[in-house]
């Protein structure tokens, strides 16, 4: 399909076309076209004092305390899907990682890698989604960067966001997980992964399901304000609950036991999984998290979680054991238990 590129001379046109509504390589050149793109697309959407300073980085006032710092990159196909877009994911994903550290997000950076040929209209939609998500999460996007890659070298747009926040309260870490801790799950599994699958259309599955993408600071803040002794928090992303549980069991060196009948899965997610041979425990979420805390505080934590919209479906999902033999075990409705392995790679649809 592509010619051998090394046989073409490196030509640079002194008068690049304006782009005509599409991203062109010149938009990434750092000069007038880039300025224009920033003025027309990014600054209006993310407008705040830090960006207005037009500096390389943003300096932010903080209260004395420990900073949480995180980064994530977002590569999503399709860019827009029922319930969200790469824009929401790029904001919520990083905000949520900070929340899992017990930190309210203070500021985000946003780096864009745009593919030549991307329509500016599409870019504006993504940026608008980010702006709304940032407003909903109460966090400004204070600094950023834009690069352009040649047509064919990117999926429209890749986004990296990094975030900082101040940790409020005691440290929240895997190492604080203790034997006997209760494990709470904030809601049902797999809506994001199945919404994306349906939007991709290759498997011909249709549903009205929306992605569960959402910011999670509100319930975390409520738990912290109640003075609960939160040992660990973890949001579910790729690999779903199974991946998160395995990572924590491994990081802490204690077995985790999950109770399958307690774990909520919406009808559409279950049906799509049945059809394609997937297991909901491994399907990605983007607005769900787990809480690890002493058993004695579990009841109170449950009330707090259920009072917040994004965690209204919270359940007790399991507990931490005081041994390290299997990693994660899951008990089914027949009373049998089996080891819940870390997924080796992508789940593939199956017919057997």
């Amino acid at each position, binding site marked *: 399909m592509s010619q051998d590129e090394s046989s073409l001379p490196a030509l640079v046109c002194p008068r690049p076309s304006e782009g005509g509504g599409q991203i062109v390589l010149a938009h990434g050149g750092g000069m007038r076209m880039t300025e224009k793109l920033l003025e027309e697309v990014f600054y209006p959407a993310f407008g705040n004092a830090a960006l207005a300073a037009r500096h390389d980085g943003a300096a932010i006032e903080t209260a004395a305390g420990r900073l949480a710092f995180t980064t994530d990159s977002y590569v999503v196909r399709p860019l827009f899907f029922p319930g969200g877009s790469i824009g929401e994911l790029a904001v919520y994903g990083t905000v949520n990682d900070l929340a899992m550290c017990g930190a309210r997000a203070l500021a985000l950076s946003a780096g864009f890698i745009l593919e030549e040929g991307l329509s500016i209209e599409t870019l504006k939609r993504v940026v608008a989604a980010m702006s709304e998500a940032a407003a909903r999460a109460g966090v400004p996007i204070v600094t950023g960067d834009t690069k352009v890659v040649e047509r064919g070298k990117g999926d429209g747009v890749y986004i990296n966001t990094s975030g900082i926040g101040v940790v409020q309260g005691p440290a929240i870490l895997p190492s604080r997980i203790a034997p006997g801790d209760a494990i709470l799950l904030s809601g049902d599994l797999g809506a994001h992964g199945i919404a994306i699958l349906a939007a991709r259309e290759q498997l011909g*599955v249709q549903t*009205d399901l929306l992605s569960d993408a959402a910011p999670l600071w509100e319930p975390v803040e409520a738990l912290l304000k109640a003075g609960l002794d939160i040992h660990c928090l973890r949001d579910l992303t790729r690999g779903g609950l199974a991946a998160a549980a395995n990572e924590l069991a491994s990081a802490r060196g204690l077995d985790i036991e999950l109770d399958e009948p307690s774990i909520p899965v919406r009808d559409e997610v279950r*049906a799509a999984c*049945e*059809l394609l041979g997937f297991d909901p425990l491994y399907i990605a979420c983007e607005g769900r998290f787990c809480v690890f805390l002493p058993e004695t505080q579990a009841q109170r934590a449950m009330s707090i979680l259920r009072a917040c919209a994004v965690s209204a479906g919270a359940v007790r999902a399991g507990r931490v054991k005081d041994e390290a033999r299997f990693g994660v075990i899951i008990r089914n409705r027949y*009373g049998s238990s089996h080891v819940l392995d870390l997924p080796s790679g992508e789940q593939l649809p199956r*017919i057997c």
Partner: protein
Amino acid sequence: MCLAVPGQVVEVEGDDPAFLRGRVDFSGVRREVSFAFTPEAQPGDYVLVHAGFALTVVDQEEALLTLEELRRLGEAVEASPETAEEAPAP
């Protein structure tokens, strides 16, 4: 070959039997399915779908009868204390 899932027929269309197709609803998830082998399927019926094909129309009456029997299995035994069974160990 094993992964076949029951779903409810939404509609069936087509003239050529080889191209007879329509949508099946699985608890809110819909997919187009071939009815080439179940031309008798009607909207509202439940069909067993495997790899995009409806293999058979599910006999719901039969299903109901068997389930009722199974739900009563062991009742006569449990009612009499002499033959009371231990519950299976979890």
